[in-house]
C-alpha cells in the first residue's frame, strides 16, 4: 500500500506539490491525472526517494522507500524519462539491476519473456522502439517482484498495441494484489485506473475536471470503476475463462502476468457527494468458445458491455479469433473471449450516466 501524507514540495516560492494526501491501496490501480507541470513527476520522484519533500512523506508498506532494506522489493519505479544507458543492450541493463539485487540471470530472461522483450533483449537500448524502451523500463521495475509499482506516465506516446500490453501487465499486477500508482496527462490513458485522482496546480483537485459543479455543491475527487470492468481490456487474449474478481487476490507467483485474467461480472460505479449517485451495470459473461467450437455460448451483453468490448459496429465477435485486436471507426477493440452479437456505438445511450463516468466511457 502506498500512503501519501501531506506531501509538499516547493521549488523556490512555487509549490510543485501542496499538501497532497491520498492512499493507493493494494490490489488496485490508482491513477493521478494532471496536465504537464501539475506535479505528477515530482510525486513519483518523491515516492522513490529521488527527491526530498519540504514536508509530508510517502510511505510504502509503512516506511519511506529508502528506509527499506531492499527497497526494490517494496516498489518498482518507472520514470517518464529513459534511465537506461543507450549503448547498453537491454539484457545488460536488466542484468545490472539484477546484479544490484542479487538476482540470477534466469530472472532477467523470465521478466524479459513475460514482457515480450525476449526478441529484442540483445539489441542496444538506442535501437529499441519507444514502446520496447518503455517495456524495458517496466521490466526494470518488475525485476525484484515488488509489492507496488510507481509509474510516471507509463503509456505516454505508446502505440496502441504497446499501450494495451502495458495496461494488461498493470492490470494483472494489481489483480495479484499489487498496488499500482500511475500518473498520466491523458484521460484516455488514465482510464485504466480503478481510482482516479486529479492533480491540478500542485493540489488534488476537489472535482473531476470537466464536471460542472452546481454552486455550493461539493463533489468527490474520486472516480471509481470496479476493477473487474477493466479486466476485459487487460485480460489475456488466450484465456478461456472469465471469472469475477472485485477484491484483490493473493499474489501467488512471480510473474507480472497471470495465467488468465478473471471476470464474470462487470460493473462501473461512480459516486458524487454530498448526494451519492450510483450507476451500476452487470453483465454475466460466459466462457468464450474456442475457434471452431460448435457449442459457442450465448452472450447477452448489457449496453455498457457492448460499448467497452465491441465499440465497432456490425461485428459478429463469434466469427473472430480470441486474440484479435482491431481498429474500426476510430476506436480499438479487443474481441477476446466474448462472443455474440454486438451493437453499434451509437446505439448506446449514456445519458443516464453521471458526468464523470460519461466522460470516462466516452474516452
Amino acid at each position, binding site marked *: 500500500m502506498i500512503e501519501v501524507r501531506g506531501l509538499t514540495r516547493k521549488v523556490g516560492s512555487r509549490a510543485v506539490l501542496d499538501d497532497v494526501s491520498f492512499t493507493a491501496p493494494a490490489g488496485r490501480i490508482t491513477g493521478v491525472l494532471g496536465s504537464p507541470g501539475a506535479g505528477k513527476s515530482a510525486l513519483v520522484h518523491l515516492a522513490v526517494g*529521488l527527491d526530498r519533500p519540504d514536508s509530508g512523506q510517502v510511505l510504502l508498506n509503512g516506511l519511506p522507500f529508502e528506509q527499506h532494506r531492499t527497497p526494490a522489493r517494496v516498489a518498482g519505479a518507472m520514470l517518464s524519462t*529513459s534511465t537506461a544507458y543507450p549503448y547498453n543492450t537491454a539484457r545488460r*541493463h536488466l542484468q*545490472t*539491476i539484477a546484479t544490484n539485487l*542479487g538476482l540470477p540471470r*534466469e530472472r532477467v530472461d523470465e521478466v524479459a519473456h513475460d514482457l515480450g522483450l525476449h526478441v529484442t533483449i540483445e539489441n542496444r537500448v538506442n535501437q529499441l522502439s519507444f514502446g520496447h524502451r518503455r517495456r524495458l523500463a517496466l521490466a526494470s521495475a518488475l*525485476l525484484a517482484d515488488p509489492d507496488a509499482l510507481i509509474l510516471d506516465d507509463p503509456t505516454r506516446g505508446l502505440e496502441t498495441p504497446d499501450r494495451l500490453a502495458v495496461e494488461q501487465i498493470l492490470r494483472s499486477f494489481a489483480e495479484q494484489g499489487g498496488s499500482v500508482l500511475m500518473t498520466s496527462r491523458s484521460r484516455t490513458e488514465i482510464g485504466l485506473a480503478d481510482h482516479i485522482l486529479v492533480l491540478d496546480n500542485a493540489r488534488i483537485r476537489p472535482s473531476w475536471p470537466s464536471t460542472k459543479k452546481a454552486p455550493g455543491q461539493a463533489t468527490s475527487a474520486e472516480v471509481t470503476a470496479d476493477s473487474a470492468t477493466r479486466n476485459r481490456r487487460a485480460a489475456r487474449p488466450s484465456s478461456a475463462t472469465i471469472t469475477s474478481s472485485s477484491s484483490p487476490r493473493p499474489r501467488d507467483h512471480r510473474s507480472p502476468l497471470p*495465467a488468465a485474467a478473471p471476470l464474470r461480472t462487470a460493473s462501473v460505479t461512480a459516486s458524487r457527494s454530498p448526494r451519492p449517485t450510483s450507476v451500476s451495470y452487470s453483465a454475466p459473461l460466459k466462457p468464450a468458445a474456442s475457434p471452431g467450437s460448435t457449442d459457442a455460448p450465448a452472450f447477452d451483453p448489457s449496453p455498457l458491455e457492448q460499448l467497452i468490448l465491441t465499440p465497432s459496429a456490425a461485428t459478429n465477435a463469434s466469427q473472430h479469433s480470441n486474440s484479435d485486436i482491431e481498429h474500426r471507426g476510430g476506436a480499438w477493440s479487443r474481441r477476446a473471449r466474448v462472443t455474440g452479437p454486438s451493437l453499434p456505438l451509437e446505439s448506446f445511450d449514456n445519458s443516464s450516466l453521471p458526468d464523470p463516468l460519461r466522460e470516462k466511457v466516452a474516452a
Partner: protein
Amino acid sequence: MSATTARPAPYHARLTFAHIVQAEWLKLFALHATRWILIGAVIINLAVSLLVFITTRNSQGDGIGADIIAPTEPATLAALATQGCVQLGQVVLAVLAVLCITHEYATGTIHSTFVTVPRRSAVLAAKAIVLIVCGFVVMAVSEALACLAGFFILDGTAVSTDLFTTESIRLLGGGIVVVLAVMLLALAFGAITRSTAVGVGVITLITFLPPALISLFAAEGASAEGPSPLVRALCYTPGGAGGAVLLQENMTDVLSPAGGILVLLGWVVVFGALAFIVTRLRRL
C-alpha cells in the same frame, strides 16, 4: 507477450554492498570508453617511460642528443619508471574516474541506480572501489612493463636497475598511490559537478599544472630561506604533493614523500566527504 503459469517464487532480491560493487563493475565496463582508456593508459605510460629511459640513456652516454642533453644525476630505474608511468597516466585515469559518475547523470541512468540503491553513499563507495581496482591493475601492469623495458634500455648506464631496494619499492608503490588518489579525487569532482568537462578540467588543472608552475617559479623566487611562498603553496596542491612522493626536483624541498601522501589523502578525504554529502542531499 506470452502466457506464464503460476509457480513458486524462486528468487529473493537482496541488496548488499557486494552486489552494488558487482553492479558498478558491470556499469563501468558497459561504457565504451572504459576499455579504450585502460588500454590507452597502459600504452601511454609505457611510451612516456620509454621516452624517459631513452633520454636518460642518451644523456649519460654518447647516443643521439647526448651533446644537447645535460647529464643528470644518476637515477634509479624505479624512479624513472614511476615518473614515466605517473605523469600522463594519472590524467588519463582521472578522465575515466570522472566519466564513471558523470555519464550516469548525462544519460539519466543515475535515476535507475538511485531507485535500485537509495543509499547513495554506498553507490559512490562502490564506484570508488571499482576504480581503485582498475587503477591499481593498470598502474601495476604499466610499471612492470616499463621496468622490463628499462632493464634493456638502461643496461650499461650508471642507472641502478635494482628494483628490490626499499627506495625502489617505495617509489613504485608511491606512484600507484598517487594515481589512485588522483582518481578518487576525480570521482569526487565528477560527483560534485556532474559534468564531464568541468570535472576533467578541474582535475587536470590541479594535477598537471602545479608541477609546471613550480618548475617555472622555483628558480625565480628562491632565496636563502627556501622556496617562495607561491612555490610552497603550489606544493600543497595534488600535483605538487604527488611530485613530492615521486621525489621530483623542487617539490621535495617543501614536502617529504610521506608528507606528500598525507597531503594527497587530505584532498581525497575533504572532497570525498563533500561528494558524499552533495550526492546524498541532491534532489534529482
